[in-house]
């Protein structure tokens, strides 16, 4: 089965779960005074879930014939994913997750400096004498702009300082 159909299948499952919640669980929480309304909090989700299930089925059952894309310039062919820099992409995603988890405990300056440095090293940058000052200046400049100039609080240092 082609990837677009697999995706349609996943969305179909999501729509069914969403529909189940809309049809069978939401209305039980409705206070009595709201039950006289012509529209309930579940009305719109019910409509959406039915439409989403039907549309996902159209794709899943192949009822619509997509035109062959003749112009695949620059697009990624997922069937040849092994030929691309998959390791780099996965490492960068892991780095983003690490940044999200470390941003508060390690403070903005350290985590941003680390993110920019490690990110560039993953992509093959080896001129550390340029990279380290650039990452440090960029981290400080963004922190200064956001925290000092715009007044949006970003904790600069780790929590124990």
């Amino acid at each position, binding site marked *: 089965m082609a990837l677009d159909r697999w995706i349609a299948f996943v969305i179909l499952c*999501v729509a069914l779960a969403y529909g189940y919640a809309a049809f069978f669980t939401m209305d039980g929480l409705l206070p009595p005074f709201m039950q006289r309304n012509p529209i309930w909090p579940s009305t719109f989700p019910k409509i959406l879930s039915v*439409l989403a299930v039907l549309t996902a089925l159209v794709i899943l059952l192949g009822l619509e014939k997509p*035109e062959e894309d003749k112009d695949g310039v620059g697009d990624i062919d997922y069937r040849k994913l092994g030929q691309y820099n998959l390791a780099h992409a996965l490492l960068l995603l892991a780095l983003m*997750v690490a940044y999200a988890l470390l*941003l508060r405990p390690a403070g903005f300056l350290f985590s941003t400096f680390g993110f920019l440095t490690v990110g*560039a090293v993953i992509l093959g940058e080896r001129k550390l004498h340029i990279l380290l000052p650039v990452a440090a200046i960029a981290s400080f400049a963004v922190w200064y702009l*956001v925290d000092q100039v715009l007044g949006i609080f970003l904790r600069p240092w780790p929590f124990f300082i």
Partner: protein
Amino acid sequence: MIEGLLIGLSAAFSLQNLLMVIAGCLIGTFIGMLPGLGPMSIIAIMIPVAITIGDPSAALILLAGVYYGAIFGGSTSSILLNAPGVAGTVATSFDGYPMARKGQAGKALTIAAIASFGGGTIGAILLMIFAPMLSSVALLFHSAEYFALMVVGLSAIAAFAGTGNVAKAVLMTLLGLIMATVGEGALFNMPRFTMGLMDLQSGFSFITLAMAMFALPEALFLVLNPARSVQGGDGGKINNLRITRDEGRKIAPVIGRQSLQGFFIGVLPGAGATIASFLGYAVERNIATKEEQEEFGKGSIKGLAAPETANNAACTGSFVPLLTLGIPGSGTTAILLGALIALNVTPGPRLMIDEPQIFWAVIISMYIGNLVLLVLNLPLIPYIAKVLAIPRNYLIPFILFFTLMGSYIGQNNATELLLLVGMGVCATILRFADYPLAPLLIGFILGRMLEDNFARSMQLYDGIGFILDRPMTLGLLVIAILLVIVPSYRARRARARQEGVADGD
């Protein structure tokens, strides 16, 4: 009106107010380039400064300048990095970013600047002429018409559906609408589909979704396949800044049409720049010739000029309900209203009579603001476009960092960053399978408003009868259906004709 204009001219051309316009445009442009800081947040940040100034005209002129600058700055990050930080500039990235990737970043920014200038200036002229008249028209729109208008906005998905891919575009729109129902709505005041997570209590954030749908997959694609990098040529030297006479001739009617359409959509409270830009894109695509339609989404100058013009004209239009009725038509104008009230100015029908110098000074400063943006930004474009000449090893981590920052600044919540990564991976997989992501974002942006207006209409009319009871609603819904059907019909007929030719007819 002439008298008002003279008052406005004398107020707007005072040294202090001229400085305010220039400062506002500069601040707005540079901060607006940071994804995640839209006009709303920048204006909110600038309010204390504006109040310190004390003079209401000067303060409002400064804030209006910031507003325009931020919209223009948002377009820049949409074009160069595919990172639209504001809903109103999402449509700009559809053709702006492909142009940048083709090595035409300078030209794309020039077209954006000219289109913004055109939209803003024509919008200001319309505002001057029609402001008092339009305020009463805007009041004719009830929630039923708003619901229908949102449906028209959603019908813009037809513009993203390739031949035989309508189901995918519709499915993505529905997914966006489904995501918009997560969290606590304004109307029912009860959390829905939050799965007990506090972080989902207020729903998904637009900026996180926008970054996850556009910037993150693009950055990952650049990592996966370095050959996709911008074909800037000459080691990133930015040439090709000028637009040719032929290109100018092509975009001039687009700017004219979208200034009008964008302005009138902007006048409607709640509709705003986002719908104007999506509709502008959809309308221009539908009326383009078949060859031009092929270009849309791949770097069409019309596809870039349309949303850019429309969102600027709509921003100007949103001042109509604010200045003449005291009704803020968007989040940004709501913040401006707050600033005005803090400065002891009450916008409304009497503003023109009681405080003509404020009313007219703001309108004149719109002209000046647009001119300032053009004069400031055109010479800066080669330097701004140099962003793309940064080596890939530096550029990609920076794009990823700004994506994360944009999401974090808005919410100040690290969970949002994990959501961003998760959604970004999903968006990348969707792109592998050729699912269009723009409809998902359109569905998400319009979903809340659509449901609120639908629910309000249902409550007012005690059922679905409002569709037939209100001719304007019915008319808009018919337009929405036509927007979807006509392009499909035209494509089918063209295909049938081609097959006929192949069969030797």
